[in-house]
């Protein structure tokens, strides 16, 4: 996205332009929903957060910084709302407070919340092999799942992922490497078990 486009978006957001909002929803609907589904593993919560995220975009539009792509700002809002929701559903324990103080920002809280039944990834992908492979992703810890989806689905640059997650670039790199390695290991294990992959 060019800087002139992000400036236009920033201007429209400041004015709370309804046409721009429609266009943004049209353009980013699937990406946002997929990200939320990956993060929460729960279709109902993802749907709630989808609406809440767009309302927050309207409300905080003047805070959008045109130096960043709109998409990364959108995902940052969605991520923060998901963490807030996880906190509401499961208040922080002392251990969580300590990890939050160390900069973990509460994303791991999402790991402890149950996924919807049936699993949204399998439901989305169907009952075939792709569905079973998608299930591998659904069972990754959230901090790996979120960087993987931001990089490979949403095509965010590494510095954008660092901006969204608030983590240092080196942490983003190591989470991506480790996350990929986990997916590979699990796919290979499933392949050995089923003799298919």
């Amino acid at each position: 996205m060019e800087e002139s486009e992000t400036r236009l978006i920033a201007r429209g957001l400041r004015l709370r332009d309804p046409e721009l909002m429609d266009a943004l929803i049209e353009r980013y609907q699937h990406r946002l929903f997929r990200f939320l589904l990956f993060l929460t593993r729960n279709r109902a919560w993802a749907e709630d957060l989808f609406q809440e995220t767009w309302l927050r975009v309207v409300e905080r539009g003047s805070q959008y910084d045109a130096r960043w792509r709109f998409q990364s700002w959108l995902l940052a809002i969605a991520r923060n709302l998901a963490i807030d929701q996880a906190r509401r559903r499961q208040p922080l324990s002392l251990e969580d407070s300590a990890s939050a103080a160390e900069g973990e920002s509460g994303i791991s809280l999402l790991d402890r919340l149950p996924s919807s039944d049936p699993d949204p990834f399998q439901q989305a992908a169907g009952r075939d092999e792709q569905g079973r492979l998608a299930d591998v992703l659904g069972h990754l810890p959230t901090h790996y799942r979120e960087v993987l989806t931001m990089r490979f689905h949403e095509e965010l640059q590494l510095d954008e992922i660092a901006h969204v997650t608030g983590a240092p670039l080196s942490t983003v790199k190591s989470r991506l490497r480790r996350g990929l390695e986990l997916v590979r290991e699990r796919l290979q294990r499933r392949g050995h078990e089923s003799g298919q992959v």
Partner: protein
Amino acid sequence: MSEGIHNRARRLMADRAIGILKEDERGDLETHLAECPDCADAASALDLAVQVIRSVPVRVDAELVQATRRSVRLYAERLRENDARMKMMMVSCALAAAVGALSLPYFFRVATWLGGLLSFPQVVLYAGMAVFWLVPGLAVAIAILARRLQADLKGNIEVL
């Protein structure tokens, strides 16, 4: 080959998949993959992992999008109205402050003259002036609180 070479190769494979592999390391990786079948298998599995991540089809429900659009439009309209009200209030406050600052010496003279005429003690005169200056601000604050209360009640009723 030592374990260190394979571990490095795994890291480079991941970097290649992520898109951060340096050019000078690409040759090392390719050479290693050509010589090591285990790492070549791991590289294929990693490519498959990336394909899997990219291929999970997730689509958002059209009704949800429509409902979101409606909510967003309504909310944006309400916020725009609030923005306009707030702007008008800021302008009013600025004008009131300017008029107040300009009229202060004259007002003080009139109050002093009136106080002398009616033989009021000075403390009453100053208290009267303070009340006079606070009244507009208090009126605005009460109006804002009343409006907010009304909006909250309306919101609660809509929820019910």
